[in-house]
């Protein structure tokens, strides 16, 4: 029983931040058809900026509100700043090019941003643990768990709700869905696809950065830590179906739980299990579990 709840809680926490990150990735892919490898950079930059600001604020209990403010602000700044630059000056010039070339371009951007981190923040790991310390931990179904980690799950739920509401209940959401379904038709209907792309990319970036920023207080932020997350969120997005929001949710739950299970039960198989499941899902359902529909081409 204790084992099950440990796995469940760990898996939930892990799934939560994976969901936030993957949601950004899947939205970008769904709308722009770009697999953004540089998504990991948003994550890393979000984490670094949040860490720096939290450390700057210092360990002070009067600051707790400011911590969260700093986390969200970091995510927003990173998303807007890098999202704007990358979309406006690099990706925008490449639409219509071969899809693989665009993936590689984002790969190049990823490399550049990784090294920029080294230059700006140095190589020493940062540990902005104050917010997590402050909230302490509680016992949930017999397992000790940090409260901060649990708020992560709440955050993921809120993000999921906002996203669902936005896509299904607002005019903007419908607009976005039409762009996802068929770009050319949307252009001819008078939708400014360029702006939609820019905003989407920024929002996707913000979500990636938010994942990193929010998770920063629970880990040690060090160079190169983003790469695992990118590959993992690829797995999530592929399992769930690329460009599908419910897919990202289910996918991150699957990957999160699997990883928690593997870590506690068979650490040897951690990586293996996740990718084996990804391979199996692709073999059975090539488009992922919740593939968005495609327009007919002939």
């Amino acid at each position, binding site marked *: 029983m204790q084992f099950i709840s440990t796995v469940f809680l760990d898996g939930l926490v892990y799934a939560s931040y994976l969901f936030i990150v993957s949601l950004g990735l899947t939205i970008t892919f769904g709308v722009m058809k770009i*697999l953004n490898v540089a998504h990991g950079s948003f994550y890393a930059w979000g984490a670094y900026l949040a860490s720096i600001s939290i450390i700057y604020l210092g360990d002070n209990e009067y600051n707790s509100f400011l911590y969260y403010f700093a986390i969200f602000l970091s995510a927003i700044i990173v998303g807007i700043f890098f999202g704007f630059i990358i979309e406006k000056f*690099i990706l925008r*010039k*490449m639409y219509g*090019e*071969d*899809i*693989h*070339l665009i*993936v*590689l*371009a984002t*790969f*190049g*951007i*990823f*490399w*550049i941003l*990784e*090294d*920029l981190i*080294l*230059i700006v923040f140095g*190589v020493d790991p940062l540990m902005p643990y104050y917010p997590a310390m402050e909230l302490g931990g509680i016992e949930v179904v017999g397992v000790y768990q940090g409260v901060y980690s649990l708020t992560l799950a709440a955050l993921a739920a809120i993000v999921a709700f906002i996203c669902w509401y936005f896509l299904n209940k607002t005019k903007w959401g419908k607009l976005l869905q039409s762009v996802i379904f068929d770009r050319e038709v949307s252009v001819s209907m008078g939708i400014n696809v360029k702006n939609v792309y820019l905003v989407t990319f920024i929002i996707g970036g913000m979500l990636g950065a938010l994942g990193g920023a929010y998770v920063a207080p629970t880990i040690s932020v060090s160079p190169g830590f983003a*790469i695992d997350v990118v*590959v993992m969120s*690829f*797995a999530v997005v*592929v399992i769930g179906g*690329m460009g599908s929001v419910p897919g990202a949710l289910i996918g991150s739950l699957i990957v999160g739980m699997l990883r928690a299970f593997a870590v506690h039960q068979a650490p*040897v*198989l*951690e*990586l*293996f*299990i*996740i*990718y*084996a499941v*990804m*391979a199996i899902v*692709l*073999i059975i359902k*090539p*488009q992922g579990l919740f593939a968005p529909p495609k327009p007919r081409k*002939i």
Partner: protein
Amino acid sequence: MYYGFGAYAVAMCQKYFGMTDIFLRFFIAVAAAGLLGFALGFILRRYREIFFAMLSLAFSMVLYGLLAKAEFLGSTDGMSISPSTILGYELGRFGLLYFICFFVICAIVFAQAYLRSSLGHLTTAISDNEIRVEYLGYSVEKAIHIKYVISACLAGGAGGLMAASLGQVDPDSMVLWSVSGELVFVTIMSGLGNILAPFMGAVLFEFIRTYAFELAPQAWQMIIGGTLLAIIFFSPGGLWSFFQKLNFLRKKNND
């Protein structure tokens, strides 16, 4: 992945059969990778574009996960490989170099023949229009499968040679997806469709990497990334097309 698989095949044959002959090593690597490619090809040939890439990634990560944890294969430390021999004599550093050159030339000749064949041309045809190829009476999946096995063989052979010349195999530098990323980078840098192009690309890549590492140890990735972006922007056909353009201009000037 096939690169790493070829390398590991060489390492395993040494461990279990004491095999160090350079010819045997090369063929074992090619055959092992080819077999793996043949088996996985049945699954992969149904996929295109991003899904193909993702499934390949998943497979290679599965292999990585296995190799990194397999005790009898040395886990993350990998295994060391003894110097190659030919008919019982040990090959020196230069001897090995000659043999590698020999194999590279073989591969070039083979690849050239493939690209000139109907099957080779079919590749472009498939990327242009799959439906048409099916209606011409040839199975697109079969063509993709064949191509996949061929490239797996080439990659496996390269891995085998790399293992022989480095004297070491390990999962991080052989199987991890970033290695594949490097190889793709070389391909993009050099441009598609010509055999000599990747060779030039590979030389240039090593050159840039070595110098970037010397000049700016903290920012070499940045230099590589910047180069990649620059190439994609200014010469999407890779360096090869850049040279072609230069040639064209020179001819124009001469006329």
